[in-house]
C-alpha cells in the first residue's frame, strides 16, 4: 500500500468497497446503474476494480467520457476502447478494419455532415457490433465514467436536443437489448442536475428511470481506519501508535479515501514520528490553509453554477444553519433555525431544499431517535462551512 493522493491505485489496494461492489453487481443483474458522488471519492477506482475483477457473464469496457463533446466522438471513443481492449482478438480484427472506414469527418479538408446526421444508426451499429463480439451468454457492460459531464458538453456544444435524443436513444437500446447490454454511469456532477437542466430545455421524460441511481457512500469507519493504518505503515509512525493515529484520521476526515491519503501524505512529510496533534493539524490544513487545498469553496460556488438563484439562497440558508449544529438536526429544529434568518420560509420549501441538497451529497438523511435528522455528509465540509460561513 502506497501513499498516493490523487494517483492511480493498484486495484488490489482499494479498501472498503467490497460491499458496494457486490451490491452493484447484484443490481446489474437486473438493471443499469447510475452512481454519483463528488470528485475524488473513488468512483473511477470502483469502476476499474469492477473491470479488473469482473463477474463472469460480462464483457466490460471502461470509458472516461469527460472529453467527449459530440456523438460521433462518443462512437469513435467506443470503437477506440474496444480496439484497445480486444484489438488482438482474431474475431475483432475484422470489425476494426470496418470501423476504420467509419466516421470520416473530412475529405480533402471539407467537413462531412453525414456523421452528425446519422448518428442514431451509427450508435446502434456500434452496440450491435459490440454485442456481436461477445458470445450469446455475455452481457456487454459499458462503464461510462463522467457520463453527466458528457451530457453537459453535448448540451453546450450541440444543443440540448441532441443530448435529450441521445438519452432517449440509449434508453431505447437498454430496453431493446436488456439481455445483452448494461450501462453503469458515474458522474461527479449529479445526473439529476443535468437532467433538470435538460427538462428546462423541453424534455419531459425521465430517460434513466429504468436505471437505479445510487450515491457512492463514504467508506465505513473500520475500513477508513484500516486504510489509514495501511498508509501509516509507509510513514515513520511507531507501529504501536498506528491504530490510534488511524482512528483519529478517520474521525477527522470521515470515510473519504482521498483525504485520508492527503493527511497521511502530510504526516509522511514531517520527517519524524507523527502524533495525534499532527493528525489534527494535517486535517485542519485542509480546512484552514489559505489556498484551500481541498477546494472546499467549491461546495459554495457550485451552488451558483447549478442552482437557480432562489434555490441557491435557500440552500445557503439551510447549510449555514446546519453547520454550527453539534449533532444531526431534525426538520422542525432546522426549520426553526432557518426561520431565525428568514421568517417567511415555508415548511415545503425547506423539505424541497433538503431533498435537493441530499441528492447533491451536501447533506444526508439519517435515522434519529424521534424521526429523520439531517447533517452534512462530510465532517470536513461541515467544519469548513462553520469556520468560513457561519
Amino acid at each position, binding site marked *: 500500500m*502506497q501513499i498516493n493522493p490523487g*494517483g*492511480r491505485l493498484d486495484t488490489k489496494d482499494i479498501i472498503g468497497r467490497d460491499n458496494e461492489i457486490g451490491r452493484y453487481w447484484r443490481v446489474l443483474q437486473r438493471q443499469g446503474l447510475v452512481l454519483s458522488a463528488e470528485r475524488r471519492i473513488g468512483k473511477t477506482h470502483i469502476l476499474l476494480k469492477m473491470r479488473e475483477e469482473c463477474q463472469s457473464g460480462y464483457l466490460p469496457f*471502461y470509458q472516461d467520457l469527460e*472529453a467527449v463533446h459530440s456523438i460521433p466522438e462518443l462512437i*469513435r471513443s467506443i470503437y*477506440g476502447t474496444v480496439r484497445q481492449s480486444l484489438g488482438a482478438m482474431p474475431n475483432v480484427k475484422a470489425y476494426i478494419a470496418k470501423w476504420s472506414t467509419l466516421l470520416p*469527418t473530412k475529405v480533402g479538408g471539407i467537413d462531412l455532415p453525414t456523421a452528425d446526421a446519422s448518428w442514431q444508426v451509427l450508435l446502434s451499429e456500434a452496440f450491435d457490433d459490440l454485442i456481436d463480439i461477445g458470445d450469446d451468454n455475455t452481457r456487454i457492460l459499458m462503464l461510462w465514467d463522467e457520463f453527466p459531464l458528457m451530457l453537459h458538453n453535448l448540451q453546450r456544444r450541440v444543443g440540448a436536443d441532441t443530448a435529450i435524443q441521445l438519452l432517449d436513444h440509449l434508453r431505447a437500446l437498454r430496453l431493446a437489448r436488456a439481455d445483452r447490454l448494461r450501462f453503469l454511469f458515474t458522474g461527479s*456532477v449529479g445526473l439529476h442536475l443535468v437532467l433538470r437542466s435538460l427538462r428546462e430545455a423541453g424534455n419531459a421524460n425521465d430517460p434513466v428511470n429504468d436505471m437505479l441511481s445510487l450515491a457512492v457512500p463514504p467508506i465505513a469507519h473500520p475500513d477508513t481506519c484500516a486504510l489509514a493504518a495501511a498508509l501509516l505503515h509507509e510513514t515513520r509512525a511507531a507501529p504501536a501508535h498506528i491504530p490510534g493515529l488511524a482512528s483519529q484520521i478517520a474521525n477527522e476526515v470521515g470515510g473519504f479515501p482521498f483525504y485520508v491519503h492527503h493527511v497521511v501524505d502530510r504526516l509522511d512529510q514531517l520527517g519524524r514520528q507523527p502524533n495525534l496533534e499532527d493528525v489534527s493539524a494535517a486535517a485542519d490544513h485542509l480546512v484552514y490553509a489559505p489556498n484551500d487545498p481541498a477546494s472546499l469553496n467549491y461546495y459554495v460556488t457550485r451552488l451558483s453554477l447549478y442552482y437557480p438563484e432562489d434555490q441557491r439562497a435557500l440552500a445557503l440558508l439551510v447549510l449555514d444553519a446546519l453547520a454550527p449544529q453539534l449533532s444531526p438536526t431534525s426538520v422542525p429544529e432546522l426549520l426553526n433555525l432557518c426561520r431565525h434568518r428568514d421568517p417567511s420560509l415555508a415548511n415545503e420549501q425547506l423539505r424541497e431544499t433538503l431533498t435537493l441538497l441530499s441528492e447533491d451529497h451536501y447533506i444526508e438523511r439519517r435515522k434519529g431517535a424521534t424521526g429523520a435528522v439531517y447533517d452534512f455528509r462530510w465532517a470536513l465540509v461541515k467544519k469548513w462551512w462553520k469556520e468560513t460561513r457561519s
Partner: protein
Amino acid sequence: MKQGMLRSSRYSPGNMNRESLEAVFVGRDDVMEAVLTRIAKSIRGPQKHYILLVGPRGSGKTHLLALAYHRLMASVRADDVGDRVAVALLNEEEWGVASYLDLVVRILRALAEETPELNAEIADIYDRFSRDPVNAEGFAVRLLRRHAEGKTILLLCENLMDLFQGLGDEGQKRWRAAIQEDGNWAIVATTPQLFAALTLQDNPFYGFFTVRALEKIDLDTAIDLLARKAVHEGKSDLADFLRTPLGRARARAVHHLAAGNHRAYVVLFDFLDKESLDDLIDPFMHMVDDLTPYYQDRMRQLPPAQRKIIEFLCLEGTPATVKDISTHCLMSPQTAAKQIGELGTAGFVSRNRSGRNTFCELSEPLMRICIEVKDNKTRHFRLFVEFLRHWFTSRELQERHAAFRHDEPVAVLDRVHVEEAVRCSLADRKEPFVDALHVEAQRCRDAGDYRGLATIQEALVRDGGSASDYNTWVYALVRAGDGGSAVAAGREAAENHPADGRLLRQLARGYFIEGLFADALATIDEAIALGDQSANHCLRADVLLRLERFEEAIADAEAVLEAEPDHWHSIEQIIQGLAGRGRVVEAEARARDLVQLAPAEPSALVAAARFYGSQRRLDRALELVDKALSIDADHQEARRVRGFVLFDMADYRGAAVELRQSASCHPRSVRTHCRLADSLLFSEAFEEAIEVAEHLLDIDPEHSHSYLVRGRALMRLGRSEEAIAAFDQLLPENHCSSLRIAAGYARNSGDYEAAERYLNRFAERDPRNRELWIERCRLYIDRGAFDAAAESAARVESLPGGSLLGRLLAAQAVAAARPLGEALETVGAGVEAEDFKSDEQIHQGAIVAILTTSVRKSGPRYLPEGLLQLRSLLASLLHEGVLGRILTGLLMEKAWRFAGSLDEWETALGELASSLADRADCQIPLEMLHAAVAYAKTDDEKHLLRLPLEQRQLLQEVLPAFWRTD
C-alpha cells in the same frame, strides 16, 4: 533540451550535465527521494503516481527535474527495466502546445529521442492532419499507445500551468480521459504556482497530483549551495571561507537579497570573493542589467492592481500591513486583501501574521530591481545601498566615505551609494553586518566552536568593538587553547581598556594556558586590585598550583570558599594544594569531607574522583564517578573523568566508550578527543583512531599529537607511506617524545631515512636527551652501522644514569656482528642489582634486544653460551626471576621467526633446558619458546596443544595464525 552541454547555467539548469547538476544539488534530497521512489514504484507496479513540484521561479524546479531524469535513466539502465518504461522529457518551455494533439506529438517526439524510428510515423501525423484532424489525433493517440504498450509512460514536464493553458478545457479533459483509460501514465511535472485547473473541484485535474512544495532554502543550505558551487568552479579557497563564521556572516548579506531562492544565490555568487567596493559595484550593475528584463517580464504578467502593490512594496523596502498597502495604492482593503492573496499564491508576496496584522513583503527582494531601474527620482540604487549595508559595517563605510573626500577624483557612482549607505546608517542606527556577526558569534558559542568565535570577535573588535567584544575574543582564544593569540589579544584589550578587570583576568588566562605562570600571576594581581575578587582568586589559585606555591594557592581557594561555600572547585584546589605539599592525608581528608559535604552533588564527587585519580587510587576514583553518574547519567564531566580513569586503568576499550560519548557532547574538546584517540589506538581500533585524529586536526590544525596517533594507527594498518607522511608533520614541532616514537615506528617499518629525519630534529631540540641516543643507537644497529651505534651507546653511557644502559646498548651493537658471548663481555664483569633496578624495564628490554639482535643475525646457535654468560652477569638478580622474564621477552619478540633452522632451534633450546634446569622461572618460557618454534617451523598445531591452556593464551598474541584457524 541540449542536455549535458553546460557545467553551469543561471537560467537553464536543464542544459547542465549530470555531474554539474549533482555537484550543486542542495536542500531537496527529501523531495528527490520522494519523486524517485514513487516513480520507481510506478514503473514496477500497477500503481501510478502523478507528482507536481510547486515552487516559485528560481526555486530549483528545473534543476531537480533534470537531475531526477538523469538519476532515473541511470537507474532504468542499472535495473534493466528499459522495456517497462517509456520516458518522455519535454522541453523546459513547451510554448507550442495548443491542443491535446500537440501534447501527444510532443510526447512522441520526446520518446523518439530514444527510438528514432518513431520519427517517420510522427511525420505521418502531420500528413493525416492536413486531410482529417480528428483522424490525426486518433492516429497519434494510437501511435503513443502502441509505442507504450506494456510500459509505463513516464512524462517529465515543466511549467504545467502553461501547458494546461495551451491545452484548454477540452484538451485537459482529453488528456485526463486518456490517463484514466490507459492506466499506464506516471507524471512528474513542475509549476511555479497552483492554478484553478488543479485546485477547483469542477476541473478535470482537481486533486489529481501529489503536490510537493519546494520551500525556500535556509541559510545553512544556501551556504552549502554556494560552497558547492565554489568547489565546482575550482574556487576551493572561497568554499573554505564560506564555511568559516566570517564567511557565513558575509553569506548572510547574500541570503538577505536572495531570500531562499536558488537562482538568486547563483546570480549573487559572483560577489562572494569580492572584498573591496570597487570590485562590487561593476558586478552588481551587471547583475541588474541581467535581471531587469526578467523581472520586468514577470511584472508585465500581472494585472494592474497587483503591479501597483508590487511597486509599492518595492519602494517601501520593509514589510507593510494590508491597510498600509490599500491606503498607498488607493484601493479598498478588501480589494487589496484579495490581490495580495493572489500575489501570495503566485509567489510574489510573503505574508506573515503578527497579532491582528498581516505583514506583507516581496518574496524575492531582487524584484525591486525592476522598479528601481525605472525610479529616476533618486540618484542611487537603493538595493545596492542595502547590499552595501549588509556587506560592510557602518564604520567601514564611513572610512570609505572619508577616503573619497581626501582622494578625489572618485567614481561618482561609488560615492553616491556610499554616501547614502552612511546616511541611512546614521539615520536608523542599524548595523546589518554587525548583527550578522553577532548571530554567527552566538552560533559558534552554541556549537563550542571557539576558534570560529574568536574570528568573529576579532572582526567585531577591529570594527571598534567594545570591551565586551574584546573580552569574548580573548575568552574564545583561551577556550580554543590558543594561548599565544590569547595573550596577544589580551594585551591589546588591556591597553585599550586598562581599567577593565575582566580583560585582565582573560589575559591572565591566556598567560596561564601558555604556561607563563609568573605573568599570569602578575596580571591577576592587577585584576584583583580592580575588583571581582572571587573569580580572580579562583584563577590565582589555579596559577599558584601550577607554580607549586601550594600554601598560597590554598589561601586563595579558602578566600573564595569564604565568599562562596559551595564553590567545589576551590575545595578541589585545596585538595591539590595539600597533595602538592605532600599533605596527602589532609588532602584525602578534604576529599572525604567534600564527598560527605555534597554526597548528591555530581560536580563535587567528580572533583574528589580527580584527586583519587591523581593519586592513582583508580578504584576509588571510578567508584566516585560511577556514583556521580548514578545521580546524573548525563553529567558529561563525570563521563569524561570516567574515561580518563579507565584509560589509566589500561581499560582502553571502556575508556573509548566513555570518551566517545563525551566527545559527541563536546565535539570540539581537544583534550577529550586526544585521549579518545589514544584509547582507540591502544584498543587497536585503528580506523576510528585515524578518524578521531583527523577530527582533532579539524578542531586544532596544530595539534601535533594527532599526527602521531594517525601515524601510529596507519603504521599498524600497514599503510606505512601514509604513516610516514603523518609523522613528517611532527618535524616542525618541538615534541621530542613524539619524534622518538615516530622514529621507532619508521625504523621498524624499514624507513631508516625517515627515522633519521625525526632523530635529527630531536637532536636539534634536545641533543643531550638519553632517549635520543638510545633510539639512534637502535637505528644504527638496524642499519648495520655498528661503529656509529657504539658511539651512540657511548653517549648514553656518558649521560647521568646511563652507564648500564650505555653498556647494554653497546653490547647490542656488538651482538649484531659478533657471537653473543663476545657482545655480553662489553657489559662488564657483572651487573649491580641497584643499577639494574634504577630503570628495570629499560634495562631488561635492552638485554632482550641484545638476545634478539643476536638471534636475528646468527640464529639461535649462540643462545646457550650467551644465556650462561648472562646468568653470570645477572647473578645478583637471579633470585628475582629476571632470567625468566628475559626469556619471555625473547618469546614476545617472536625470535623464532629470525634466522636458523628448526633443528638448530631444537638443539639450542635443548641445551638451554639443560643449562637452566635449576631455574624454575625459566621453565615455562622455554617450553613456550620450544612449542612456538616447533609450530612456526612445522605448522603442526599439536606442538601448541601440548601446552596448558593459560600458556596457549599467552601465545595468542604472538601466534595469531594459529588462533585464526582454531
